[in-house]
């Protein structure tokens, strides 16, 4: 495994005071916290920072890390010194205990409760932890339902699953897969796996829960005469007769044409009237004629 330079990761000097370390962590946490940050790779960065902070903010861990790690550089190949035992574990509050859930092997080998070998000696049964992961789904697949092959890493072991994504799932919703989380120890129950659904952005359709939104271009005559037009929906093109004198911005509701469910969502098509560009004298004359015969000032009619 690789040696981790916690000072470098956190961007503090080796002589930084506890106060400086805390301030630097807070500054970086505000920037990279994955629930807030829009930065690329924020999640990975934040995980590394959290781990570095966990060690450097704890005087006992920091001292042990400093003694053991002098002479190593970040990325050096590393094995803990033989007989390494960290017994300086300060009484941990719940905040610390839970924060350590997914630290690196490097951290585990030095300070972890599941240090190599420890698992084999455990004689009492323990339930496996629930796990959480995210999965990207195309909008079309969310509409029809689909099968997804996913590969994920649970407690360092890779796991592959074929899962069914039911039709009509909403963005951000979570699917619970019973027993697919961390395995239980000594007869303990397996944890569950929660998969958070992220529906990918679509070039034509936008979602709001189960409702689907679309901007629909129409010609002036289709709008004025209330003609029958074709409207794309996730379930295929449907024919729809516009109300006469429809205007740009007007919303047409297609009941039940959104994501399936009970009740299903609706589709809303916002009309946008596009004018044809006159390409010759005759076509230009048509506009001239309209101007003469249909005096109209949209800025006054409001």
């Amino acid at each position, binding site marked *: 495994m690789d040696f981790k330079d916690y000072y470098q990761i956190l961007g503090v000097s080796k002589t930084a005071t506890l106060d400086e370390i805390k301030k630097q962590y*807070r500054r970086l*946490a505000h920037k990279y916290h994955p629930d807030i940050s829009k930065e690329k790779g924020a999640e990975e960065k934040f995980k590394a920072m959290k781990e570095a902070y966990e060690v450097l903010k704890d005087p006992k861990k920091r001292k042990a890390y400093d003694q053991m790690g002098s002479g190593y550089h970040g990325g050096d190949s590393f094995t803990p010194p033989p007989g390494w035992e960290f017994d300086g574990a300060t009484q941990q509050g719940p905040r610390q205990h839970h924060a350590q859930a997914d630290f690196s092997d490097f951290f585990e080998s030095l300070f972890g409760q599941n240090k190599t070998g420890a698992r084999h000696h455990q004689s009492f049964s323990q339930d496996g932890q629930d796990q959480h992961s995210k999965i990207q789904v195309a909008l079309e697949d969310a509409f029809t339902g689909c099968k997804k092959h996913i590969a994920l890493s649970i407690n360092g072991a890779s796991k592959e699953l074929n899962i069914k994504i039911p039709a009509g799932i909403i963005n951000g919703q*979570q699917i619970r897969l019973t027993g697919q989380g961390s395995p239980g120890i000594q007869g303990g129950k397996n944890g569950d796996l929660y998969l958070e659904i992220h529906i990918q952005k679509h070039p034509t359709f936008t979602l709001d829960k189960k409702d689907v939104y679309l901007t629909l271009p129409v010609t002036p005559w289709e709008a004025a005469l209330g003609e029958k037009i074709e409207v794309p929906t996730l379930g295929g093109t449907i024919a729809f007769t516009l109300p006469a004198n429809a205007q740009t911005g007007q919303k047409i509701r297609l009941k039940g044409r959104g994501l399936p469910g009970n009740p299903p969502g609706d589709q809303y098509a916002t009309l946008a009237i596009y004018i044809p560009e006159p390409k010759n004298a005759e076509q230009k004359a048509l506009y001239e004629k309209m101007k003469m015969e249909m005096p109209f000032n949209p800025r006054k009619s409001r």
Partner: protein
Amino acid sequence: MKIISGTIIDHESTLTFEEICRAIHAEDQLIVQLIEYHIIQPKGASKTDWQFDDIALKRARLARNFYYDLEVNFEGIGLLVDMIERIGALENEIEKLRQKY
């Protein structure tokens, strides 16, 4: 390979108190405090009847992360979770408005 189906967590398929604690790796006490501070609201009158839906699960997960990672107090956590929800709604609204054919 076998295809497995899960349960979608929504307003009908909910989680119990123990289940939500395990799902987000939180102490019992943290969930109780999130309820006391109105950050999440379960259905049901007492602890044994509590049911947590998809919205509660999502908000609890965010709150948990802020609690353990940012050392924010509960007033701050409530504010952050509300703000994140509002930003999400606004971003969605902007996307709808920007949409071109």
